[in-house]
């Protein structure tokens, strides 16, 4: 997120959270386009970029919420349904205190370049 902020993209606000939660729906409702970004297991490509839609029904889960649930809350509480995408970046090591591996660094750089291009095109 810090690296994305350093790119100083016009009209883009960044927020980093340990896990998504209900108040993130309020932030989503206030934006036209929302990009959820997280590390991901099980990918074969450096990153994937997919459309996210509000969940048809809320998962009966714990405190942590997925992007689909956040969008459903934004729609349910605020009547807003922003264009939303999920940028999932392939990770390799998950141990506490581990920094990014070289391969994850490379994936992150590719993903950020792609995201910058997408956001510039998406700008009204």
């Amino acid at each position, binding site marked *: 997120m810090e690296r994305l902020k350093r790119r100083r993209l016009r009209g883009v606000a960044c927020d980093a959270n340990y896990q998504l939660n209900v108040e993130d729906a309020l932030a989503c409702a206030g934006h036209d386009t929302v990009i959820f970004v997280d590390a991901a*297991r099980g990918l074969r490509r450096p990153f994937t970029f997919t459309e996210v839609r509000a969940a048809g029904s809320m998962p009966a889960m714990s405190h942590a919420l997925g992007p689909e649930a956040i969008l*459903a809350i934004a729609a*349910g509480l605020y009547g807003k349904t922003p264009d939303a995408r999920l940028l999932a970046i392939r990770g390799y090591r998950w141990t*506490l205190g581990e920094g990014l591996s070289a391969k994850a660094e490379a994936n992150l750089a590719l993903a950020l370049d792609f995201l910058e291009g997408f956001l510039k095109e998406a700008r009204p």
Partner: protein
Amino acid sequence: MGRKITIEPVTRVEGHGKVTIRLDDAGKVTQSRFHVVEFRGFERFVQGRPYWEAPVLVQRLCGICPVSHHLAAAKAMDVIVGAGPGKLTATAEKMRRLMHYGQMLQSHALHFFYLSSPDFLLGMDADPAVRNIIGVAALNKDLAVQGVLLRKFGQEIILATAGKKIHGTGAVPGGINKNLSPEERDRFLKGAAPLNIDQMIEWSRAAVELFKDYHRKNKDMVDGFAEFPSNHLSLVRKDGALDFYHGVLRAVDAEGRKVLDDVDYQNYLEVIGEETRSWSYMKFPYLRSLGKTDGWYRVGPLARLNTCDYIPSPLAQKEFEVYKAYTDGKPNNMSLHTHWARLIELLHSAEVIKELLLDKDLQGAKLVKKGKKVAEGVGLIEAPRGTLFHHYRINDDDQITMANLIVSTTNNNEPMNRAVHWVAMNALSEKPEITEGMLNRVEVAIRAYDPCLSCATHAVGRMPLEVTLVDARGNVLQRKVR
């Protein structure tokens, strides 16, 4: 044929747990257990790390109450750097208090409005597809929005005091690394509606009234659901007042007799023991003076309002008096009254936040104190879910050599098992059919304790949700994926 019911994971709680209920051929409950199936290795992870890293590292135990771990570890490290209880600067202690009460506000709001209110407002037997915050919004949009904004306000307090909403670095051994600027203070005191502290107090009052109204209309169910006698443990201020940040250990039994009082928590090992059982990763703590069988206790909002003598803020004190009068001043052993107690604490937290915001010490410049270093320290705090113990030893190279954490949910292990057993016996046993609503009642009992079973890491696409019905031979009879 005997049957086993498994609820895994238990939903609308933090982390991953599972319930198994064994039924005999006649459908009678023969055994019920609440298991924690995640293994938490933080005591081992932190060994070898420099002591000053502990407040930052250990908060990764949790994404909901990281501030509790941050502050409990910082309090233990205060002792290690010779700046233990009573030695911090006024600015440092009050900044930490503001951080902590901000956390209580956000966590209690999240728990009641988002996790528990669907059971009350929509009903325990409501369609699980609508038994959630969106279902609540469909019924009462203002209430759902208030819950979100109370949580957001608490998170903003944490951001201003800890540097980040999650996993901040504000508390350091011997103090704090920032004060509160006048601009930050004014934003919380006089911010544009609705995000100012007066509005938070008003919504907190309304939340207490909401529960009292629900209780009036559903008295028998609320009072009787998972009611059982227990001991209760918490920190209280030296004078017996409710205090979430610091105090002495006090425990009372089910009749209100003091089992522990005025105990310095540096000596917690003399009064608290921990038992292990083969079927759960979570230990079972107990009061040594009462032994393993009788010494188990509750912690959290219900316990805190049973151990304290009064609440040091006017609106919450008024509600406390109503609450205590309901049980004629005796300890309250009704599991669902935990929600009532939690909402009184929500109101108290909002009041304390305002009191702190008006305190000029928050703009002070003296942030850190150090004294003579020692090799061992214990930090205790009343986390939203209850008493949290952090205990560390370090070596001459400043590396942590031992860590022992007793988290709130571990303290509530036996009570949660008792609550599950109560529901199993009263809602499931000898019933011809096990419905989703019945299984939800098991979760309602656990949810009252707001357990935080761990949430150390996350990545896209993880977190299965499954309910399985298995016969005595291990054959899966039914499986639900939610």
